[in-house]
């Protein structure tokens, strides 16, 4: 089974603020990490490859620095990484992002098609949980989200269990297919020191793709131009006017809180 896992580099800290005076975004530090939800998808993919053989590759979209998350996945056990990087993709919304990743996957698949594409539940910076489903649509694949587990049937179909709210659903899909793994469904393995050492001896772990590699070369389908949604304005979250501030020592505060809850008849 040839598996492709979609991953993303996200900021380590979510302490982005907007200066209320100037409207300027302030981001603390430039540290980044792999989106934590992608680790579960990666672990699911690595276990499937161990069980059924085949390959596992990873793909991400972002600036050159996003190679770091591809390498982290390679240290965990991925065979190869693809970085989709092009300034013409800047400002992409969900639709343009999904279309870009789908175009890249289609371009790679002309050489080596994939049986299974795995995504995480959502990212911790965009928090939309929509790219996986849109990607499945652009690639014309059946898909399920909130996937708890997956296995191959004797006939070579994919059986997956998903938790859709309170509904536990087991479905059988023909391959190729796309699954979005739920969070906390497994314990992601750590990057291996041995693989990290071995990786130094080779430099061809990552392939970089740009618009020039895609079948659809029309730049209006990508980035800001290919995005039907537009951010009209960004602004700091509203503040509640005139809240009551309690101050004092810890002991006084605890007592004030007790009195407050009594007054409000919560206790």
């Amino acid at each position, binding site marked *: 089974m040839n598996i492709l896992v979609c991953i993303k580099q996200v900021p380590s800290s979510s302490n*982005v603020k907007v200066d209320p005076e100037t409207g300027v975004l302030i981001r603390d530090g430039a540290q980044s990490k792999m989106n934590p939800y992608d680790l579960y998808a990666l672990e699911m993919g690595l276990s499937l490859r161990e069980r059924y053989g085949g390959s596992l590759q990873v793909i991400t979209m972002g600036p050159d620095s996003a190679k770091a998350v591809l390498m982290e996945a390679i240290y965990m056990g991925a065979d190869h990484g693809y970085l989709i990087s092009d300034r013409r993709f800047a400002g992409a919304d969900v639709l343009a992002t999904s279309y870009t990743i789908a175009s890249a996957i289609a371009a790679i698949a002309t050489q080596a098609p994939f049986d299974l594409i795995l995504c995480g539940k959502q990212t911790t910076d965009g928090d939309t949980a929509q790219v996986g489903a849109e990607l499945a649509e652009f690639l014309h694949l059946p898909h399920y989200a909130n996937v708890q587990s997956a296995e191959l049937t004797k006939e070579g179909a994919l059986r997956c269990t998903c938790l859709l709210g309170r509904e536990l659903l087991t479905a059988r899909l023909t391959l190729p297919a796309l699954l979005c793994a739920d969070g906390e469904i497994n314990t992601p393995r750590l990057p291996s020191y041995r693989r990290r050492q071995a990786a130094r001896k080779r430099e061809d772990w990552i392939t970089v793709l740009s618009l020039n590699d895609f079948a659809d070369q029309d730049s209006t389908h990508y980035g800001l131009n290919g995005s039907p949604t537009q951010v009209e304005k960004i602004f700091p979250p509203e503040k509640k006017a005139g809240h009551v501030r309690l101050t004092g020592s810890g002991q006084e505060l605890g007592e004030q809180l007790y009195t407050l809850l009594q007054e409000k008849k919560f206790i």
Partner: protein
Amino acid sequence: MGKLVIDASKVNAQTAAQLVALCPFSAITYNGETLDISAACKMCRLCVRKGPAGVVQYIEDTQAPTVDKSKWQGVAVLADATGGTLHPVSFELLGKAKELAAVTGQPVMALLLCDQAADMPQKLIERGADTVYIYEHPMFRDFCVTTYANAFEDFIQKIKPSAVLVGALSRGRSLAPRVASRLRTGLTADCTMLEMKENTDLVQIRPAFGGNIMARIITPRTRPQFCTVRYKVFSAVAPNHDAAGTVLRMPVSDSWQDTRVTIESAEMKPPEKDISEADILVAVGRGLKSAADLAKVQAFCSAIGAQLACSRPLVEAGWLDASHQIGLSGKTVRPSLIITLGISGAVQFAAGMKSADCIIAVNSDPAAPIFDIAHYAVVGDLYEVMESFLKKAEEHSHET
């Protein structure tokens, strides 16, 4: 629609340094000679608006074609009928749809995909739908996203609603992106506010860029405009038993069933004690020093009769499981009281709880953003506050 262009003649060490420092996404780099914008650019255009004049310019391309908006009319709500009963988020969305449609004087529609409609259409009319469109067929008994998407697409192609509101439940979160991308239109996830412009553009407001920022998002060139909204973000209106509406049964094609997918089993699990249904919550965050201290928080919860919840860092640390998590990556809650302990209040978290009737925030940092949305700001150490509170509660129990 356009692109950013750098005027090389205006680039010098000073302007370059300003721009590099200004970009919140570290997308602008300067090697001492040329200034470059990398693929990290999110086209926020801050460099154009706030940077040194004229160095980075936004060049408009030819205007992209826009649909004829007058051909797309009304606000549609996808009803969620998992397990044969309407989820209350459907009623919340109908209430909001009625407000939005009133601005443009257009109708409110409900779309119902199910295997047995029973009295569900009537309930949707009572909650605000002018017309209910039903696709009733055994293929909709269990959820297959592509089968559902085929019917959803049929509805949109035939009825042409201007805006479509979908509840951000498991089914809606898979279905909305599938259909929006099929129609090459925009979709905004987890909106916390919606407004309608007179030109039928839907203003979708949600937290953005993973930080403490809100964004107003529009879909100006395409229709329909898709958005998802979480449960408990809007309020449902009371049912009006005298409301009149039309029920239209839509033809279903057997070819819509996706033969690549077979559902082997589907079972409803018994309802768990869910934080989104709790009346009183205590939410704990990064201010908690160790997992062992959760016992103290549990004692505090018991004293108030509250259910325990948390912010994302505690789930990432593995101290509590995801069912406790409030926020955009967790659940949205609307209790009558929420007490937050050691939570700074990132917008990601706040979006999941700010409609609570009473918010009491305990945090040692007087500048924590959580205080901006709290009704009561308790500036102090959460351990000391809890300890003193529990002592007082114990004294009180001895007195009575």
